[in-house]
């Protein structure tokens, strides 16, 4: 049987433990990124061929516990129980052993074959932490391997261990909890013995005491009288300890974790304060923290825009003769024009979006790998709370300044549906690099830098204001921030490049098809000669309400594809890039305001559609169109007093 040469392993661990480094090391090019059935959460799978074995690797989402609190946790738990992988590889952050152990204990309760990986053992050593892995191995009766995943150190030992132990029956003596709790657990386990459950009895018993609603439902169907007894036992535990029985068990795990940590860890007395500690004090300080943040983010945008402008210019030079080549070689038929529309859409994506998004992602991932992103969440939590979301939402905002598409995607890190939705809606109002091209190209160049800055401040205030309203309108309680604060560490180049590549790939796969299709459709409308009629039809809005030239009606339609087209096509229409010939300062500001808010671009709409359903996606578009037009009209009337 070829089956003997097949092993499947899953990687499980808390966030920041280095799971993805291990996954990438193992699977390299043989990766498959999909979604969990019906969920927007990524499913990462890959294959490793090693010593004649085919090893399937699955990366479970990074989580903090196996209680069904979030979708990720539910997925992970279900997968381990139902798919019964050969091994669960628990990646542990050695610098945060105690907290990671709480999760490990929950994995052990599942009674699956487990291999423990003490990752970042080098960083732990730097912090003066030495871990006795032999003692650790004895206590938890599972193999322990020491690794430094970012450098690939120790990783083959994991697979070697899996091959060595394949087929060996595990007889676990998982660490035991306190006496009276174990008594309750074993009593319930015995009562559960005679019913057919897909789960281990001891685990089921623990979950019943923890009042896990899903497990209670399953047991109710099979043997409801066990629930009665579980309830009685819970009450007894609650009487002894004075808290809810689920908390009693969580407490127990946490105490056991600290007990094990004390036994296996030798902590050297703190040596001199390290550079990183000092950096941490400055970057999270009440005052200097904000100053540093402004400097870092300001520097980031400056770099992105100066690099982007330069790179975009280079690309333009390369592509400028392609249209001529197409017309001479393919001809100038209706179909050829549509074909060119498709090509041009891709070129524009490469030429306009790529130069800004590439450096943006690189810097973003440097900041993340370094550990700075968590500091921003910390510093911005208070402001974000005003909008009914917590500090982690600030990351989506920052990403959105580069591009709304990954900004919307990143909202998935928020814990609840409500927060995800609020963040996604607000994020679509953040001026992305394409909108910035318009703002800088019109207002920055012809009206003045102060007005440009004013527009950004205006956008932020508006987002804050709308956030406050949506926090009140959308029902539900705001979730509080709970976030581990990682230590600063030297950014790892390979990790950063890999993440950048993956993000770019995702952007291209999502954005390109939508951009091409809509590009062709709009071109078809144009060729059919309906554009004039459309601009006439829209003129009550564009000309009378907004005080703009009639042509802007068409520009705004093209802008749905990509916002910067508003500027690009305006230049094409005027036959010059000197916009001050055609627009007054007032019109420029009005046009910039409309462009900023009037609709998310098609690529962003497609994400909203995918993650929140078409009803919400369309509702967002309609509301934003109405809102932007109303707002810009008011701005125009206010500007009447200024200019």
């Amino acid at each position, binding site marked *: 049987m070829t089956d003997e040469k097949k092993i499947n392993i899953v990687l499980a661990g808390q966030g920041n433990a280095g799971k993805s480094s291990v996954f990438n090391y193992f699977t390299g090019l043989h990766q498959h990124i999909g979604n969990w059935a019906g969920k927007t959460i990524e499913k990462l799978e890959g294959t490793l061929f090693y010593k004649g074995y085919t090893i399937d690797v699955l990366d479970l989402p990074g989580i903090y516990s196996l209680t069904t609190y979030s979708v990720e946790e539910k997925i992970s738990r279900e997968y381990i129980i139902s798919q019964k992988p050969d091994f669960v590889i628990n990646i542990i952050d050695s610098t945060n052993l105690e907290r990671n152990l709480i999760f490990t204990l929950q994995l052990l309760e599942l009674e699956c074959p487990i291999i423990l990986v003490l990752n970042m053992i080098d960083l732990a050593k730097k912090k003066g932490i030495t871990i006795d892995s032999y003692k650790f191995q004895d206590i938890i009766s599972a193999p322990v391997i020491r690794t430094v995943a970012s450098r690939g150190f120790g990783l083959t030992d994991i697979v070697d261990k899996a091959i060595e132990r394949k087929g060996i029956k595990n007889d676990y003596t998982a660490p035991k909890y306190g006496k009276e709790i174990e008594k309750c657990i074993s009593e319930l386990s015995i009562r559960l013995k005679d019913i057919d459950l897909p789960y281990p009895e001891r685990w089921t018993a623990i979950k019943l005491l923890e009042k896990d609603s899903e497990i209670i439902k399953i047991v109710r169907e099979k043997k409801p009288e066990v629930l009665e007894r579980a309830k009685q036992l819970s009450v007894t535990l609650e009487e002894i300890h004075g808290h*809810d029985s689920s908390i009693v068990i969580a407490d127990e795990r946490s105490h056991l974790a600290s007990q094990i940590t004390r036994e296996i860890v030798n902590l050297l007395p703190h040596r001199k304060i390290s550079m990183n500690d000092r950096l941490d004090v400055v970057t999270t300080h009440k005052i200097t923290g904000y100053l540093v943040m402004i400097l870092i983010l300001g520097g980031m945008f400056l770099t992105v825009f100066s690099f982007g402008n330069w790179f975009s210019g280079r690309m333009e030079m390369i592509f400028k003769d392609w249209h001529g080549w197409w017309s001479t070689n393919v001809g100038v038929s209706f179909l050829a024009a549509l074909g060119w529309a498709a090509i041009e859409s891709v070129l524009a994506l490469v030429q306009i979006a790529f130069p800004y998004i590439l450096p943006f992602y690189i810097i973003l991932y440097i900041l993340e790998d370094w550990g700075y992103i968590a500091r921003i969440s910390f510093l911005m939590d208070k402001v974000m709370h005003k909008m009914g979301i917590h500090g982690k939402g600030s990351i989506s905002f920052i990403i959105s300044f580069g591009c709304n598409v990954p900004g919307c995607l990143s909202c998935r890190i928020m814990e609840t549906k409500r927060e995800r939705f609020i963040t996604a809606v607000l994020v679509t109002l953040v001026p992305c690099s394409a909108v910035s091209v318009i703002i800088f190209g019109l207002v920055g160049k012809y009206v003045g830098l102060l007005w440009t800055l004013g527009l950004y401040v205006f956008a932020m205030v508006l987002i804050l204001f709308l956030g406050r309203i949506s926090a009140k309108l959308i029902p539900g309680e705001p979730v509080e921030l709970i976030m*581990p604060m990682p230590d600063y560490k030297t950014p790892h180049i390979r990790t950063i490049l890999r993440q950048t590549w993956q993000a770019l790939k995702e952007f291209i796969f999502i954005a390109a098809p939508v951009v091409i299709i809509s590009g062709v459709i709009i071109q078809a409308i144009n060729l059919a000669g309906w554009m004039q009629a459309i601009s006439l039809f829209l003129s009550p809005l564009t000309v009378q309400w907004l005080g703009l030239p009639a042509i802007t009606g068409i520009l705004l339609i093209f802008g749905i594809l990509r916002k910067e087209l508003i500027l690009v096509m305006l230049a094409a229409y005027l036959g010059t890039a000197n916009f001050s010939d055609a627009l007054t300062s007032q019109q420029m500001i009005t046009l910039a305001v409309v462009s900023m808010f009037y609709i998310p671009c098609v690529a962003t709409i497609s994400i909203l559609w995918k993650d929140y359903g078409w009803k919400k996606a369309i509702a967002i578009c309609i509301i934003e169109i109405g809102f932007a037009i109303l707002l810009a009209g008011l701005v125009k009337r206010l500007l009447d007093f200024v200019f």
Partner: protein
Amino acid sequence: MINKKDRMSLIDIKDGRSGIIISVLGGRILTKRLADLGLTTGTEIKVIGRTLFSGPVQIEVCGSRLVIGRGLASKITVELK
């Protein structure tokens, strides 16, 4: 007898001071969430700092650092060491 004065909400503790968690108020899911991160009664914690205008609190617990929102922090009672 324990002096009541030494017990206070986590948000009232000065930066740099440590104490033992006496109680965690709040819903079952939330309390459990905190427990999964090592924040349970009897655990020693140290306040590292917080942001302007009473923002979230940064604490050290079980040898690693956590940031928790102010609302949550207010539900944790600590006895000063």
